[in-house]
Structure formats: structure tokens, C-alpha cells
């Protein structure tokens, strides 16, 4: 099969998977609601029916939140891997999520009456961190691991800042402990209003920049000699990844590893062509987080663990695997 057909097939598969995950996300939970139950209540217009209430008020916002956070973080990761030319890059690992998180908490502590500011401040935090990491860890002869180490250092500084705010302003953020690991419980449709707009813009930009991502992956010199304004494109790409990661963090907290696992799983199947990688990551990330959220709700029912914990359990080992593989390929 040629690479184009493979890419298209992958995009369709991830779309199908997303649809399946939405149905599962709406039906499964501590109470089972069959699609038939819900449709009956929905068509009868019976808003007091428990099936209707569970689906519309509790599960729909969660599924939507998971879809948005998953697609935003996966695409953000795919972009960062291209622009930093580093397979280990992803928004949680290089500290971009932490930058967004610190700004969210600052905003909640000092400007609690302006929820519209949350995604914007998260975006600013993500952008500032990404630019700083870029300045520190790029340049001739800097190894791929340097980027990761710089990110770890940055994350711990920003994490210290977040913990400070939580101790000094314990009421600033409701469910702050869930925020630190990333979770989707307690999401309302209203809280998604602003992030939706940011993520939409971010995804459109990412789709428009796909060819540039491919060309920048050829190396800076080649990209320049093809007439690309490399610095402008780089900034646009970092800007886009910051919009996406920031918006996701603003309502879902520090969900980790989606931006690492999903693009890599897709790369493994179809290669590095961003024309297909970006849309497939968007849908694949959406489906992945919805499914993980379902598992985190169902596995220990009636208790639930925040989805971020589950993702760390999956993502941590995956990250170690990537480091080992990267080490091998450097010896070639």
C-alpha cells in the first residue's frame, strides 16, 4: 500500500475510533445507560428521566472535554516534535503544560471572577515556557536529551510555583489535587466555552502548517534554502502548540503523555508525513483520552481515578521505551 493510501486509511480509522469512543463514553460509567434508554428519554423530551440527565449533564461534558483535551494535546505534541526535531518532545515533558498550569492557578487565585481569562493566561504560560525552552535547548550540537533535561528542570520550577499558590491560596482552585494530575470530573459545558474556540483555532492553524512542518523536519539549512522563513514558521508552530496545550490545560489540568503516546503510535503505523499525522493525531488523541477516561471511571467503580493518573501509568513506560530506542539510534 502506498503511503498516501495508508495515511488516508489511518485518518478514517481514527475518525471511526472517535465515534466508537463517544458512544462508549456516553453509555458506560458507574451506571450503565444503553443508547436505547437515552434515545427514548431524549425523543420523549423527558428531561427528568435519569438516563437523560446522566448523559446530558454528566457524561456529555466529560466526553466533550476529553475529546477536546485529547485532540489538542496530541496535535500540540506532534507539532513540538516537528519543530524541535526531537521525538522526545511533548507538551508535558518540556514543561509547556506546567507553564500553562501555573498561569491557570495564578489567574484563579488573583482574578477569580474572570473565567474567560483562564484559557488566555494558560496560552501565555504555555507560549512563554515553550519559547524559553526553545532558546535554552536549541542550537548546534545540543543533544536531544538536553531538551528533556531542560524541560524537567523547568517543570519542577513551575511545579514549585503551583504548589506555592495551592498552599497560600487553598481555595483558589476547586479540585486542585485533580488539576495537578489532570482529570475531567466536574467539567461543565459552560467551562468549555472559551477553550473550544482556542482549540478550534489551534487545530485549523495546525492543519494549515502541515507542509511547513514537513519541510522544517528536513533540517533548518534545507528549509532555508527552499526559501522558507524558518524563524517565522518556527514561531507560528510554537505559537500553535501553545494555544492547543494551554487551552487543554485550562480545563483539564496537567494531563500528561497524550502528546507523546498518540503521535508516536500513529508515526509507527504511517510514518512522519504531517499531512496525515496531524489529523490522525487529532482524532486519535480525542478517542484515546475518551477511552482512558471511560476506563478510569469504570475500572474502580463506584470510585474513579483522575484520567491523568491512568495516562501517566501508560505514558511513563512508553517514554522510557522512546529514550532507549533513541539511544540506540544515536549509536548507528
Amino acid at each position, binding site marked *: 500500500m502506498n503511503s498516501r493510501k495508508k495515511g488516508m486509511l489511518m485518518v478514517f480509522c481514527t475518525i471511526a475510533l472517535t465515534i466508537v469512543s463517544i458512544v462508549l463514553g456516553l453509555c458506560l460509567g458507574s451506571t450503565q445507560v444503553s443508547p436505547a434508554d437515552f434515545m427514548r428519554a431524549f425523543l420523549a423530551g423527558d428531561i427528568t428521566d435519569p438516563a437523560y440527565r446522566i448523559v446530558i449533564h454528566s457524561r456529555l461534558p466529560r466526553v466533550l472535554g476529553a475529546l477536546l483535551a485529547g485532540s489538542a494535546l496530541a496535535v500540540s505534541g506532534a507539532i513540538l516534535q516537528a519543530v524541535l526535531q526531537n521525538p522526545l518532545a511533548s507538551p508535558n515533558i518540556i514543561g509547556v503544560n506546567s507553564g500553562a498550569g501555573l498561569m491557570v492557578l495564578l489567574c484563579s487565585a488573583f482574578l477569580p471572577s474572570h473565567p474567560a481569562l483562564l484559557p488566555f493566561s494558560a496560552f501565555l504560560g504555555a507560549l512563554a515556557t515553550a519559547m524559553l525552552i526553545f532558546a535554552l535547548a536549541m542550537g548546534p550540537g545540543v543533544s536531544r536529551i538536553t531538551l528533556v533535561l531542560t524541560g524537567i528542570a523547568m517543570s519542577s520550577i513551575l511545579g514549585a510555583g503551583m504548589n506555592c499558590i495551592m498552599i497560600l491560596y487553598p481555595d483558589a482552585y476547586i479540585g486542585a489535587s485533580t488539576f495537578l494530575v489532570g482529570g475531567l470530573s466536574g467539567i461543565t459545558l459552560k467551562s468549555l466555552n472559551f477553550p473550544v474556540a482556542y482549540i478550534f483555532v489551534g487545530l485549523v492553524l495546525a492543519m494549515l502548517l502541515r507542509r511547513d512542518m514537513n519541510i522544517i523536519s528536513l*533540517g533548518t539549512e534545507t528549509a532555508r534554502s527552499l*526559501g522558507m522563513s524558518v524563524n517565522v514558521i518556527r514561531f507560528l508552530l510554537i505559537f500553535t502548540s501553545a494555544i492547543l496545550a494551554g487551552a487543554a490545560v485550562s480545563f483539564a489540568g496537567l494531563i500528561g503523555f497524550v502528546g507523546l503516546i498518540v503521535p508516536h503510535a500513529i508515526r509507527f503505523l504511517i510514518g512522519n508525513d504531517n499531512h496525515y499525522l496531524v489529523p490522525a493525531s487529532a482524532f486519535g488523541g480525542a478517542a484515546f483520552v475518551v477511552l482512558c477516561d471511560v476506563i478510569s471511571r469504570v475500572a474502580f467503580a463506584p470510585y474513579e481515578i483522575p484520567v491523568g493518573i491512568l495516562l501517566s501509568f501508560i505514558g511513563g513506560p512508553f517514554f522510557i521505551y522512546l529514550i532507549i530506542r533513541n539511544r540506540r539510534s544515536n549509536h548507528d
Partner: protein
Amino acid sequence: MIKLENVCYSYPGQPNLLQNITTSFEEYKVTSILGPNGCGKSTLLKVICRLLQPSSGKVLLRGEDVHGMKNKELAKQVALLSQTNHPPEITVEDLVAYGRYPHQKYGQGLMPQDKQIIDQALRYVKAEDYRHRMVNRLSGGQRQRAYIAMALAQDTDIIFLDEPTTYLDINIRFDIMELIRSLNEAGKTIIMVLHDLNLALEYSDHIILMDNGMIQTEGSPQEVIRSGEIDRIFNIKTHLFKEGTQTFYHFSKPTLY
């Protein structure tokens, strides 16, 4: 066609890598820049094709300062084959298609004439058979052909090559040099940095010999050999052999004789 006027270059806080380089490159010629490691030859190439900005002096392309030109305008006139350390995981065909980047408007796909140029480039370098294969899975010679096809698809008058034969087997080196010569015969101006003295002497019309950030001598291969500068700079001895009309060169360490 390309003129350099008093070009200097230094990395911040370091002594000049290039010192007052003044020279010119002729149209339709093959020019090779030679010199020992660290002499500034790659830096010079990067300054000419604007990957680096000179700290003083000017690079003129047909009378126009390249540092005042728009990126895409320059890329329509000059293509560069860099040394590639990380071959991409994309198909040969896609790689060659990126050569059309400076000719495409933003967000525009490949037009029929773009596809035609890409096909021509693939045919020219004889890469049609593996056009659907991944660049990172190719042999060194095939990969270099794919990159040359990308430069061809860029449809420029001038092609720069940064050590195009490094890491290749000896027979493949000759194949690549023959390909470069045929490009020149088809009307391209070729400017390259080479490591291999024999290849440079055999395939160049003009040679620029550098050391310590300065041009030590330049001229035709015979003139450069006759100047004795190669022997001095590399601390070697050049031997000439004539066979019919052809001249061959052999280099050895001077202490052995």
C-alpha cells in the same frame, strides 16, 4: 554571476573565520572550493547562499545583494544541497516535491506543471524506480540522487553542494560527480565544497583553494596544481602522470620521498 566583495565572517566573540574574501563565480561553470578542515570553506558556501550573514562585505547575485532579497526569490535562483545527517522518513517523491516550495503560493497544492517538473527531476537522476520508497531506507548514493532531484525541482540556475560525496563508496562518488557534470552541461552553474582533491581536480572548471579563512589561490585545476599551493597547504607532494591526453594526480606525504 556571483560576486563577493570583502566578505568577512566570524561567530560572535571569535576570530574571523573568513577574512576579506573577494572573488567571483562564473556562470555555467563548475567551481569547487577546497581546503583543509576548518579553513572556512563550508562557512563560505553558507555565507554565499545566505544561511549565514557576513559580518561585513557583500554577496552580489547578478548585481543584487542577496541579503536584501526575499527568501523565496533567492530560492528560485539558488538551490543548496546541504550535508544531511538525519534523512527524513518520507517518500522520495514527497522530498522532491518540496523543491517546488519557493514556486508555490501559500496553501496552494501541486499544479500539473509542478508534477511534470517533479517527474522530470526524478527521471533525470534515475530515481523513478524508488520514488515511492522512504528516503531513510535508501542507500547513500540513492539518497544523494533524491536530494539532487529536489534541488532540480527547485528549478534554479545555480546549485550549491556541500560535500556531496562524503560517506559514499568510491564508485558512487564518481556516479554522483558524473551526474553533477551532466547538470552543468544542461546549463546549471555548480558551486560546491569538496573534500576529495582528485574528484575536484577532475570535475571542476575552476578551483578556489582556501586556508585560514582566506583564498590562497584560484584558477583552473592546472593553474592551481602549478602554483604549488596544494602541496604547501596540505603539506603533501603532488605527482602528475600523463596518459594520452589525460592527466592524473597522485598525492603522498612528502617525507616518504
